[in-house]
Every structure is written in structure tokens, then in C-alpha cells.
């Protein structure tokens, strides 16, 4: 989640005598929390899909209107006698056979009726109890890691220094968007800072999506719903909370997809190294500004 992370970090000796500058971009706590987050996010996502498979329908409101789900992933008998997977969103029916609604488990001759396919769920073979065991354990890892991260961003100055965009940067959103779409990535000293789209994406994830997914998840807990005489009504009711939890999970997955894409196109090994060892090799400065002082 933390691509560029360097403003005002103390200088460390460059690790290689290359023409381009190596510099220390990610501090140890951020690196450790990043990888804990990666692992717990995917375990939460996959076990969450396993939980969803137990009742592959979403509703809006206090309880379940079984006749009118917002979304369902089910199967109907196919021509070949195998279940045929369909996904329904409102009144629209999509043929999602083979992936959503019905799919073949590894080594099986026939398709099984299941919302998400076995390669996407924990456990692979549908079992709600195991999915819940994993989800509710890694929820603690995920949330404690998240709390530690937010505390770190606040107290280390990471939030103010790196995450909050400056006014001038906000005015440059259109230019930054154009650069991203054209795959023009900042070089030289500009690559030491998060760009403004990164700022906004990270802030949206850290302070909107992640709190939402946690709060919506807790809103499904019958014991916690006893707090304040039914606070889950703020989210529209328990079934709305379940739907929001699901939607937020897929927004996070979309973020991860874009994030990984950007990591790859801006230099997979360089980026990976910086999130493992902390050191990042600055890309060549396209504008050849001539500044070659040791940074920062």
C-alpha cells in the first residue's frame, strides 16, 4: 500500500555504486505491516467468499427478503444434467457458468453448485465452519495490524508528511490522471513522493474502505448489535451491513488489482525490493534536470 514513502527520511548510504541513486524508501514498521496486511487480506477475502457461499444472496434492509435478493449466485439444471451457474443482479440474469454459481472442483468430473469457485475460497471444499474459523481469526490479525498502522501514520508523521496531498498537488489531479493513463511515471526526485492519485487512493482505502468493511463486519455480530439499541440501523440494518461488507471487499480487491498493476508497470523488482529491504532505485529523471546530489 505504500509505494513512495520518502520525504524527510534520514539519508542512508547507497547500497550500490550504480549510476542511479538507491535510497531508503520504506521504513521497517511499514514494510512489516504491509506484508502482514497482504497475507491477512487474502486469507480474509478467500475465507469470506467461503462464508458467502453458504448463503449466496445479498439483501438490503433489516432482514432477508428471500423473494427479492439484490444479488444471487445460484445454479439451475443444465442441458447436460450438470448444474449451470447463473448470477442475478436485480432483474438482470448473467450466465456465469463455470465460475460463479456452478464450477468444477479440482479433480471432479462434474460441476458442483457453489457461488464462488473452489480456487477462490478457503477451504477449497465448501465448509462454512472452517471458513468462519479462518475469517474470525485473521480478522483479529487484520484489525490489530490496521490499528497499529493508523497509529504509526499519525505518530510518525507518515500521514501528514506522505499521505496527505498538498494544495498544489490537488490542483494537479487532472495532469496526474493523464500521466497514469499514458503510463508516464515520475522519475528522479518526483519518484520519491507519493503522487496525488496515490495519495487519494491510499487515503480512501485507509480511512474509508477499511473502516467501512470493519464496521459493516462488526454490524453482522448479533452481540455487538446489542450496543446502543441497534446501531446497525445506521448502515441500513444487518442485511445492508452484510451487503456493504461484500461491496467493500470487492472495492478493496479492485484497489489491490490496480495497485499490483502499477507495481508491475513501474518496475516490479525495484518496487518489491523496496517493500522487502526498504531500498528503491530512483528511475532515471526523464527531464534530465542534472540534479545528482545524494538524497535526501
Amino acid at each position, binding site marked *: 500500500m505504500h509505494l513512495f514513502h520518502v520525504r524527510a527520511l534520514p539519508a542512508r548510504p547507497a547500497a550500490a555504486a550504480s549510476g542511479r541513486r538507491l535510497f531508503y524508501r520504506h521504513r521497517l514498521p511499514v514494510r512489516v505491516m504491509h506484508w502482514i496486511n497482504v497475507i491477512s487480506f487474502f486469507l480474509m477475502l478467500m475465507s469470506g467468499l467461503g462464508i*458467502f457461499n453458504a*448463503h449466496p444472496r445479498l439483501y438490503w434492509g433489516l432482514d*432477508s427478503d428471500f423473494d427479492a435478493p439484490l444479488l444471487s449466485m445460484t445454479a439451475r439444471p443444465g442441458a447436460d444434467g450438470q448444474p449451470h451457474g447463473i448470477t442475478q443482479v436485480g432483474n438482470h440474469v448473467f450466465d456465469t457458468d463455470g465460475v460463479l454459481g456452478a464450477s468444477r472442483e479440482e479433480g471432479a468430473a462434474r460441476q458442483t453448485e457453489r457461488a464462488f469457485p473452489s480456487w477462490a475460497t478457503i*477451504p477449497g471444499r465448501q*465448509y462454512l465452519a*472452517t471458513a468462519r474459523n479462518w475469517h474470525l481469526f485473521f480478522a*483479529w490479525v487484520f484489525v490489530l495490524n490496521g490499528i497499529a498502522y493508523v497509529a504509526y501514520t499519525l505518530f510518525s508523521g507518515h500521514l501528514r508528511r506522505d499521505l496527505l496531498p498538498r494544495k498544489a498537488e490537488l490542483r494537479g489531479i487532472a495532469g496526474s490522471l493523464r500521466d497514469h493513463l499514458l503510463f508516464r511515471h515520475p522519475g528522479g526526485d518526483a519518484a520519491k513522493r507519493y503522487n496525488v492519485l496515490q495519495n487519494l487512493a491510499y487515503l480512501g482505502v485507509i480511512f474509508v474502505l477499511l473502516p467501512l468493511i470493519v464496521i459493516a463486519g462488526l454490524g453482522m455480530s448479533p452481540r455487538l448489535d*446489542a450496543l446502543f439499541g*441497534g446501531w446497525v440501523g445506521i448502515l441500513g440494518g444487518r*442485511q445492508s451491513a452484510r451487503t456493504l461488507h461484500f461491496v467493500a471487499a470487492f472495492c478493496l480487491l479492485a484497489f489491490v488489482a490496480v495497485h499490483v498493476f502499477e507495481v508491475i508497470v513501474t518496475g516490479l523488482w525495484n518496487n518489491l525490493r523496496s517493500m522487502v529491504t526498504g531500498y528503491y532505485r530512483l528511475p532515471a529523471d526523464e527531464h534530465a534536470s542534472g540534479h545528482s546530489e545524494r538524497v535526501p
Partner: protein
Amino acid sequence: MISRRRFLRLAAGSALPAALASCDRLAGSDAFNGMLRQAQFLSQRAQALLTGPGAMAQEFSEDEVADEFRSNGTAMPDSRLYRQLLAGQFGAWRLQVGGLVARPAQYSLAELQAMPSRTQITRHDCVEGWSVIGKWTGVPLAQVLSRVQPLPAARYLVFHCADPMDGPDAAGSAYYESIDLAEARHPQTILAYALNDEPLPVKNGAPLRLRVERQLGYKQAKYLMRIDAVERLENIRGGKGGYWEDLGYEWYAGI
């Protein structure tokens, strides 16, 4: 010669399927899942701390009651004894209350209905994810406990049900559940004999079912036959405190 970059790429390419395969192996391990399941006690403590012991489950209004209260699990116990009791309109049915209590007792349905009652409109949350709102009337479990008087050693109540889970009249497979005494004495914990102002339907647990409103659906044991006060759960059936708990579900179903 294989380049370092190509080697790393191969390693990363084979790492993902390998990681997924080892996840799946771990997910098939009872010992590993059992370890993960211990997080339930952290959740239980955190939630009790946050909400306080007496927090009341949300109650709803009449017009939010669902037209049909979905039945899940057993809809008709496959038991000769139960069919006989049903045929006699539960006139011969008795709720046995025993174990670690000072005064073991048995109650007919009429006797339970003569005790002080509580009516509550609450949301039933199935572990699968769906919810349905219903109106329950029953006797607070605290009323029954004050009559039988649990001994100081008693820590849990175990609910034994009429529905065999392993086929017709399968011995030793009847549904069972358990809660701790604090949950048992909560004002919304009732033994319900009516749903939506009608006698409890068979598919919803006639003649009597447990309502523990701050926990998930599998705690709401149907077709109650016997309640035992016990000190520990380990030596009962699978040892985990309930039919579904013995199959891997969390005993603490508040989340």
C-alpha cells in the same frame, strides 16, 4: 544458465499455487482449525467488555415482523417419540430440568405457560448469513432457574433436543446446545412456546425452543426435551458444547 530474474519469476510463479495448496492443507487440518477457533474466546471477551453483560438485543416493531419465519435445520424431528408427543398435542411432553441443581423438576407446557412470560420481537441471524424477524413469547429462563436453583459448581446449561441428526431415531445424535449461566440469566433469554402470537409451529421447534437473542441461529435449540446444569462441557458428546460446535463451529456464537 538461468538468469536471476528468470529464477525469481519462476519462484514467484510457483509460489502462489504452492501457497494456495498449503493453505488448503492447513484448512483440512482439525488441529490447525482448532487453534484458529481459539480466537472466539478473545472475541467473546472483547464483545462482553464493549457491550457490557446486560446489553439488550435490538427489538423491532410489529410491522417489521416477517410474514414467514424461515425454518432451517430440522423441520420435523424424525423420531417416534416426537411423533407420539405431537399426536397427543404435547399433553404428555415434559421439560426435564436437572444436573447440578438443588431441585430437579419437570414442567408441562401448561405449567411453563403459567409462569411470568416475556414477548419480544427480535431478529434471528443464521450463521449462513440471512436474517428474519419474529415475535416470540415464552418464559424467561431465569424464572425456571430460580425454581430449580443451580448449584454453585454449575457453569453451563446444556439443552437436549428431540431431533436426531443422524437419521430416523438415531441414538445419541440428538441436537444439543449449551450456553453459560450469565447468558441464561439475561432477560431476553427465554424458552419460547409462541411465535407471532400462535403456538410454536413444528418447523420452528414445537413445543418449546430456546431464544438467546445475542447469538446466532444455531444456539436457538428447537424441540427442547431436557436442560442440564453442568460444570464442564468436555465430557458431553463431542466435548465442544453443541451439535454444530462438535463439527467445527464456534461455541461463542455472538459474532
